[in-house]
């Protein structure tokens, strides 16, 4: 069986699994799995750009996804007028301090020659900016958070179409990636891993605790959708007649229809990014990236600026993750900062890339589908397994109760095992990287 055929078979099996879920559970469940599979695939593509193209180990996927999520909220939610009315001036001052700090830091960075002096001055500017921000902006945040805290207590967003937040989320993630990459790339590979781990924890901490910006753990619900609402569909003339023609229940079909709309949007983005990634991979740029990854010494000898290339690819990958993060929040319709867990948002994506095939975009997409599917289905399977194992025990046996209760944690272990097994026995993944001689 040749490679291309095998890959098609993989995707057909995956489609078959989803159809099976559609038939056995419901199409609603199947479609929500598909939607998250699509988003996971995009995240996996982003990580694959970093890892597969350049061998960069990003342990902060969660943070970049969270930035995308924040962008989705900030772009789409309407501004809270009361908050702006009482705190508009203070916010403007805060913003002014923030922007001038950033501009001053960048200017100094640009103008001064590289060295300890430059780093020290940039640091001093940042610290000064922070102190000023605390002095002038802290009272404002208190004011904002006091405005109707049960319902808003934050500034709200820009009230723009949520689709706009996808590129914005990407840009936000890219900007943070640039700063982190600038500092850690060029040092040992472990340092990038540890630094990204740190930045992602901090981003999520900001989301959780800066109530004036994100409402923190109170969450922001009801983000505007890019697709119709079920309730409107059920009243729409054309939709009812469509249901009639298809002979389906209009309530069930309305939610399926909404999910299909999302699927279409996500699929468009996925295909676009996939196409761009494939183009990039085959371009001279992609060849150079892989040359650097495979032999840094000789690439360096050929005059390639490795650190600059790495920075480029790190930012690009983070942009893709940011876009996916914004898409995820769009799908959820709410920003829940406490839902950003490293195991779910960082390491799961890594399992997808390793299992799918590092260095191969199609592999990353397949990995996104397969791993998300099993991540979702592992829980019912685990509970079923535990029920089966303990079926001989009394119904109130404490061990049985403990096992069934803990079945949810099985999937962490399962994912770890899958990662270890894939890394060991199939290090090139389901769809290996093409070593093209063309």
């Amino acid at each position: 069986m040749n490679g291309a055929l095998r890959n098609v078979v993989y995707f057909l099996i995956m489609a078959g699994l989803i159809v099976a879920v559609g038939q056995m559970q419901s199409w609603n469940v199947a479609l929500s799995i598909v939607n998250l599979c699509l988003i996971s695939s995009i995240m996996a593509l982003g990580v694959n750009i970093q890892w597969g193209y350049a061998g960069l180990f990003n342990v902060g996927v969660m943070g970049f996804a969270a930035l995308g999520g924040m962008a989705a909220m900030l772009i789409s939610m309407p501004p809270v007028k009361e908050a702006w009315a009482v705190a508009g001036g203070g916010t403007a001052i805060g913003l002014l301090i923030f922007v001038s700090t950033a501009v001053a830091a960048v200017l100094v960075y640009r103008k001064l020659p590289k060295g300890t002096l430059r780093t020290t001055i940039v640091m001093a500017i940042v610290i000064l900016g922070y102190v000023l921000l605390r002095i002038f902006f802290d009272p404002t945040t208190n004011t904002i958070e006091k405005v109707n805290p049960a319902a808003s207590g934050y500034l709200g967003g820009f009230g723009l179409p949520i689709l706009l937040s996808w590129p914005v989320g990407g840009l936000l993630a890219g900007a943070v990636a640039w700063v982190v990459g600038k500092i850690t790339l060029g040092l040992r590979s472990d340092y990038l891993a540890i630094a990204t781990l740190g930045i992602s924890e901090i981003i999520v901490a900001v989301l959780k605790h800066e109530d004036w910006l994100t409402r923190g753990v109170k969450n922001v619900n009801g983000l505007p959708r890019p697709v119709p609402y079920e309730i409107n569909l059920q009243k729409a003339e054309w939709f009812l007649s469509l249901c009639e023609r298809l002979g389906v229940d209009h309530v069930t079909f309305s939610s399926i229809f909404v999910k299909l709309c999302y699927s279409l949007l996500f699929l468009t983005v996925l295909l676009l990014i996939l196409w761009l990634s494939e183009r990039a991979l085959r371009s001279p740029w992609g060849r150079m990236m892989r040359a650097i990854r495979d032999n840094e010494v000789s690439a360096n000898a050929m005059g390639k600026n490795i650190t600059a290339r790495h920075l480029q690819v790190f930012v690009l990958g983070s942009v893709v993750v940011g876009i996916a993060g914004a898409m995820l929040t769009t799908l959820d319709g709410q920003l829940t900062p406490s839902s950003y867990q490293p195991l779910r948002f960082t390491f799961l994506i890594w399992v997808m890339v390793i299992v799918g095939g590092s260095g191969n975009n199609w592999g990353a997409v397949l990995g996104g589908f397969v791993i998300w599917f099993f991540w979702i289905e592992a829980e019912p399977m685990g509970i079923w397994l535990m029920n089966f194992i303990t079926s001989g025990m009394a119904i109130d046996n404490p061990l049985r109760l403990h096992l069934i209760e803990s079945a949810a944690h099985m999937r962490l272990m399962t994912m770890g095992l899958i990662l270890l097994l894939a890394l060991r026995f199939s290090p090139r993944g389901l769809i290996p990287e093409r070593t093209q001689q063309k």
Partner: protein
Amino acid sequence: MSDPLNAAALLANFVVVPAVAYGSQLALGALGVTLIYGILRFSNFAHGDTMAFGTMFTILFTWWFQSMGISLGPLPTALLALPFAIASCAIFVLLSDRLVYRFYRQQRADPVIFVIASVGVMFVMNGVVRFIIGPDDQNFNDGERFIIKAREFKQMTGLAEGISIKVSQGITVVTMIIVVAALFWFLNKTRTGKSMRAYSDNEDLALLSGINPDRVVMVTWILAAALATIAGTLYGLDKSFKPFTYFQLLLPIFAAAIVGGLGNPLGAIAGGFVIAFSEITVTYAYKKFANYIVPGDWKADGLMQLLSTNYKFAVSFLILLLVLLFRPTGIFKGKSV
């Protein structure tokens, strides 16, 4: 009014005492990370969860001893459980080496592959811990609570501010000193310890000298498991045990190891205290302190806190960035950049 004595007592109680205890815990954690890095040459992302794993065994043995009515009187039963927990943790860690890392060692795989493999191990350990003991808080500290209570201190000195020292803090510092002394004695004076340093220094030459790499690696894992279990147990006694907290400890521990210089045990200890003191001094609210120290009737408004405790991880991160920017090999020169 200016009252430096009370100000000092206040600072000692809320900054120095907790930071010394926390620093000791970080130092022990960072020692484990730095040992693995020195010998096996990768950053072990599973170390936080190894700490959780070892602590879980401590808790289980503690419960078992408690159920049999065994206790250490004023000291926590956990101390009695510790050796058993270390042994259990070491067995598991050795098993993980046998099943996972050894293969890549033989392949002479890239360090980043080891790091990813350690992420896999981290997942598995995390799952096992949550499966066995659950994701929730466990408090397993029994015995006496305090060495000195704040009230007693106030009575003794007549100050308005008291200094309290918890038994767990005292145990932490004493244990840390004993463990570090034993570790340095082992590394500097024993044949096996020297062979580990030789292996860390120059692997090829160590092989030429007839040093058995398998033995070095085995001893390293046992030491790392012991250090992780001790650090985790002390942290759990001092605060409480929650699996996710231990995962989050990874960042300050890595920061401590890098700040001190990866691969350098002395650096790991210094790094642990640097991180702990920075974290606590930066996140402490100085309002009351300022009221003591500033003369006159001036009263501070606001908490006078440099950074909210919610962002304590940001402190480790910032120090990490500073070190990477100015001195990537750490305070004490560590292994390569």
